[in-house]
């Protein structure tokens, strides 16, 4: 148990044990990493999680199926409705509920809106970690616009409890499509600025290129997913691999980068935002303005005994849920597979040997959200 609390090595005076977190401005929440520092170089790194463990899985066993949905919202709280989808899909599979085409498209639009919101938050906080203040404010304003659109339809800004078995809870606001179109125009203008401030900045280049390189094989073996995996050159995206909702109907690409470094992860997230805009533009065309938004689901949700693993590609990677039903109206067991949980495992791989400042950049490029990791 040498790594438990990272005791200093007797007789070794050049190593300093530093405890980073849970209140550290760059940990994006309540991560705690115990670092062995030799000067600025990290010799050992032990991540500690669980500071936001709030019994999601145990509480969800004591809730009926519709009640679980608002709880799943609270996992990856940056990307709102994205968390609801795997659970909803799994139950729909078990129940055999048909989802109307329009409902699937509305779901996908919200999914991509929240991907944009999440990546905007990532961009702001990552740049804040690197020391730039202004992009944080810009991205948060853009996120406010997205959340305003969401609130107008779903009734809440961040955690709207919007998806339901068979569709969505209520129809979109009449202004929704126009507002989304305006938002996309606005975002396309702003993305130019973000490119100037983030991707093209020589300081960002100096801080990220060649830092925290994650090889393709290591990434796959570690179960890393999402932008972090794609930045290592693996074109694995649940949206393409196991399509769900309206993704088979739209065209988009999976941006990958062979480099695997921090800059590649930044770059991939940027390209994903472009792809999200592209998907949303197609869906604006494809989605009927009126029509059914909810399929026929039984009033009392009682899936037959069985189990189902469903995954979606949320902003951080493969967000899965493993539901076991015993035929009652409460799930027997709900297991959430958080993408950030898997992604965070590579902290020791990437941190050791890096500079302390690099560790901050690497951590921000992993984009952990602790609601999903600690659950």
């Amino acid at each position, binding site marked *: 148990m040498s790594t438990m609390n990272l005791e200093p090595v007797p007789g070794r005076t050049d190593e300093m044990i530093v405890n980073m977190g*849970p*209140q550290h*401005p760059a940990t*994006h*929440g*309540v991560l705690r990493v115990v670092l062995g520092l030799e000067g600025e170089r990290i010799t050992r790194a032990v991540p500690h999680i*669980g*500071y*936001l*463990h*709030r*019994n999601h899985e*145990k*509480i969800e066993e*004591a809730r009926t199926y519709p009640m679980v949905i*608002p*709880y799943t919202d*609270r996992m990856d*709280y*940056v990307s709102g409705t994205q968390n609801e989808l795997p659970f909803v899909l799994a139950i729909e599979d078990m129940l055999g509920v048909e989802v109307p085409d329009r409902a699937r498209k509305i779901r996908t639009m919200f999914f991509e809106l929240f991907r944009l919101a999440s990546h905007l*938050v990532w961009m702001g*906080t990552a740049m804040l970690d690197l020391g730039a203040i202004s992009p*944080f*404010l810009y991205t*948060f*304003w853009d*996120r*406010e616009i997205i959340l305003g659109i969401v609130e107008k339809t779903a009734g809440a*800004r*961040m*955690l709207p409890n919007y998806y339901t078995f068979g569709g969505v809870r209520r129809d979109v606001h009449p202004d929704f499509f126009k507002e989304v179109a305006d938002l996309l125009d606005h975002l396309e203008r702003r993305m130019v600025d973000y490119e100037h401030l983030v991707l093209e900045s020589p300081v960002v280049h100096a801080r990220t290129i060649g830092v925290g390189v994650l090889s393709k094989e290591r990434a796959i073996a570690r179960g890393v997913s999402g932008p972090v995996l794609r930045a290592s050159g693996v074109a694995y995206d649940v949206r393409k691999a196991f399509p769900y909702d309206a993704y088979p109907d739209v065209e988009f690409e999976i941006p990958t980068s062979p480099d695997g470094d921090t800059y590649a992860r930044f770059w991939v997230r940027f390209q994903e935002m472009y792809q999200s805009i592209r998907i949303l533009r197609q869906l604006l065309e494809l989605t009927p303005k009126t029509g059914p938004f909810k399929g026929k689901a039984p009033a009392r949700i009682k899936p037959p005994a069985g189990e189902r693993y469903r995954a979606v590609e949320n902003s951080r990677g493969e967000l899965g849920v493993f539901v076991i039903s015993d035929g009652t109206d409460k799930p027997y067991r709900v297991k959430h597979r958080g993408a950030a949980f898997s992604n965070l495992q590579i902290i020791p791989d990437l941190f050791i040997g890096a500079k302390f400042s690099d560790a901050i950049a690497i951590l921000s490029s992993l984009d952990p959200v*602790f*609601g999903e990791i600690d659950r």
Partner: protein
Amino acid sequence: MGLLGSDERPRDVILGTLDDLINMARSRSMWPLTFGIACCAIEMMATWDPKIDADRFGMFFRNTPRQADVMIVSGTVNKKLAKRLRRLYDQMAEPKWVISMGACANQGGPFRQGYSVVEGVDKIVPVDVYIPGCPPRPEALLQALLLLRDKIADRELRYKKPREIPADYEIMAEPGKDGRIPVL
């Protein structure tokens, strides 16, 4: 606040005015601690975004507890975090205030029945203002900060009267029924 004809203790003109001035300064320069915990932390950040801009009221984040005045407990506090949170609170220099943001921090919220969640941050640190909501809007946080401003401005110098730990703080430290070792 008349000096004459009042039942109250006569107010010292000079020191009383100084008290008022210092409390006014404190209430108008509340620097929160950068300590985001959960969902509410995102809305806490959004309170400083261009739309709400709490910086208009002279508030900006300090990363170190020594220089912060207000701790915004923005999220679920579980028993593992509670020790850390109390420690952070102890590290803050007097005078200090706590805002409990959101249902989880108020009383555990939807997670209050869980085995690891502290039912309310006021079991650990004294709380001045509570915000309901899950998560509260940024405007609600700003309202709470302004409530706190008014609370501070009406008071005497705080550091003369250090806060007391809630009475049931010690009760929580007793072992649980099933052999769990409570962590407080």
